[in-house]
């Protein structure tokens, strides 16, 4: 008699992660804080506690005592499919890990589960399955020409050929949210910071693949990381600046892991860089922004890597800015809803979460809801529009540019 095979395997799930499933005490804290669970009208399957419970049951059915004694019991495909949908209804915001009484690293658990299922042929979610092929081919998720990487660069912006500092634009700022790229490059120019860019050799950071359980597919993510690291090395840089939380997190945490070695350069978020300059009194502000500003911590900048103070420090030093905090900030921030593939995969859910976050900001009566990530900006703007709320959504670096008297528009062509 052929022995029955377990319905799930343990690919990508570390031994420690499998133990974490048994360490959940079902205290329910994660459920209280999960932004997608709340925005979905409390869809039971989205609750982090429930995802852990189900995978624990999968494991016990496949490798537990009963399975040992009488053979594994089958898990219907429909159940795995449903689980796949639920585990992708997560922005990887990480608040469930912050509040977990058992200290479980939930985000990595979700990502491992996603990958595990993708390897089985279940998932990823919807059209996300196209990412590896397209990003692998185009080197960016917008399917645009790599040669157009620097097309946005206006004449007034000076980019060195080689420099100690690289500005890693990111696909979103470089192709879609040009204001962010204008602001960052002009601010650096104005402050006399010599920097270079990778141009055609800047490939996607791979975040979209890693977060959606496709880190392994055709080795695309590793290829991207390797290429970028080599390109940065070739520029002779020791510091790399980021104005995108997604790229920043991918570079800081995921690249070294994918490559199995420490990076030969420092990964710095632009707000950290500016904080340092302000401390050294190297910034001469030109205009004052007389507005009340609140700040939304991007998950991938805050909780994932712990940058909370730099953006606040910068905002508080912009003349005229009255800085106010929302209710849920720093490690307890409420996600904007865009991350983890949710914006692309389940836009309604992303919008629902964004609306909740915009409401948090409205409660403070701020004029401007700022953030430090183009995805946050985009999704929060969508949330604002759908609420028809009267609040400006802007990136911290754009506010800095304005206070330095810089334009963040494309120069008018004569």
């Amino acid at each position: 008699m052929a022995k029955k095979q377990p319905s799930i395997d343990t690919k990508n799930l570390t031994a420690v992660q499998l133990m974490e499933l048994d360490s959940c005490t079902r205290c329910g804290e994660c459920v209280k804080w999960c932004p997608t669970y709340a925005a979905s009208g409390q869809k039971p399957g989205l609750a982090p506690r429930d995802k852990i419970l189900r995978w624990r049951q999968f494991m016990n059915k496949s490798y537990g005592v009963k399975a040992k004694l009488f053979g594994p019991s089958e898990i219907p495909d429909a159940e795995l499919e449903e689980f796949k949908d639920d585990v992708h209804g997560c922005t990887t915001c990480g608040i469930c890990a912050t509040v977990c009484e058992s200290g479980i690293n939930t985000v990595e658990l979700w990502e491992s589960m996603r990958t595990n299922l993708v390897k089985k042929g279940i998932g990823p979610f919807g059209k996300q399955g196209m990412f590896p092929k397209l990003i692998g081919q185009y080197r960016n998720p917008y399917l645009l020409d790599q040669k157009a990487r620097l097309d946005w660069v206006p004449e007034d912006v000076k980019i060195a050929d080689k420099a100690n500092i690289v500005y890693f634009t990111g696909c979103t700022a470089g192709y879609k949210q040009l204001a962010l790229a204008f602001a960052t490059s002009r601010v650096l120019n104005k402050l006399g910071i010599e920097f270079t860019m990778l141009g055609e050799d800047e490939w996607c950071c791979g975040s979209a693949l890693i977060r959606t359980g496709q880190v392994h597919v055709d080795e695309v993510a590793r290829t991207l990381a390797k290429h970028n690291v080599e390109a940065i090395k070739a520029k002779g840089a020791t510091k790399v600046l980021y104005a995108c939380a997604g790229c920043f997190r991918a570079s800081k945490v995921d690249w070294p892991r994918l490559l199995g070695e420490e990076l030969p350069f420092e990964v710095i978020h632009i707000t950290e860089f500016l904080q340092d300059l302000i401390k050294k009194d190297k910034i001469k502000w030109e205009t004052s922004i007389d507005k009340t500003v609140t700040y939304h911590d991007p998950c991938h900048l805050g909780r994932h890597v712990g940058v909370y103070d730099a953006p606040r420090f910068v905002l508080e030093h912009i003349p005229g800015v009255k800085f106010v905090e929302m209710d849920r900030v720093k490690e307890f921030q409420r996600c904007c809803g865009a991350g983890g593939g949710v914006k692309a995969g389940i836009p309604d859910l992303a919008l629902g979460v964004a609306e909740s976050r915009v409401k948090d900001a409205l409660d403070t009566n701020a004029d401007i809801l700022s953030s430090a990530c183009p995805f946050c900006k985009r999704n929060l703007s969508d949330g604002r529009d759908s609420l028809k709320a009267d609040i400006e959504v802007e990136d911290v670096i754009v506010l800095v540019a304005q206070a330095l008297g810089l334009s963040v528009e494309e120069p008018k062509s004569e």
Partner: protein
Amino acid sequence: MAYFSGLSDALRITFVQMMIVSFIAMVIFVYGMIINLQKWGAGVTGYALEPEAGSKGSAIRFLKTWWKQVTEESHHGHGKPILETLVLDILFQRRILLRSPVRWFMHFTIFAGWMTLFAMSGMMFAVEMTERFIELPFTAAQFREVLQLPNDIFGYILLIGVVIALVRRLFVSEVREASIMYDWVLIGVVFIVTVSGFVADGIRTGDIVWNIGMSGETAMAYAPPAALFHSVISLLFCIAFIPYSKYIHIIATPLAILANKGGE
């Protein structure tokens, strides 16, 4: 109460029974733990890897992977030193306190009461055992007298926590609705073991509340079986049952907290 009590010369058969039950409990525990360790050990040894071809889950692989994670540096930059994690997050259970002082009080009383009674039961058992083979400067009965007060104190500490937990699960609708068998069984079993301990002790010492109305000859007759009952379910439920129930958190939760350097 919860300690190994009720063994007297008149109860030699009980002693043999107890030894057998203890042995069975240990065997069931060890078997379950091995299966759990193998289940965990079916996982991979590091980030984004595949299981080694053809190899089944192994306890050693789990322990190695766990140790590697405990000792390596984290890229996230919020790891805490092992000693701090051990004392504050595991013994003091800071992560529960940060979320809810009430639940922390509930759990900490269960934890402290339980662990202390467990340790004292262990000591009592050791004394009763050694007494049979070598002469001690005190008798088991004297030792029990010494332990009586701390036993009562920690018994009540445990009871307070268990009652809070039970009341919370039964009467807070949000918690009740989210509870599944896995939760009920743990708190139910802890409740039964705790109460049976109080009753066994009450009958023996004639406590006015916990003797459940027994006195004189009835009490004399029922004290040994009550103690036996308590001892047996303690051993079976609290040792043998660990790997098969939510009790596993007693082992897995501290290991997870350590592996994640105190958590995010």
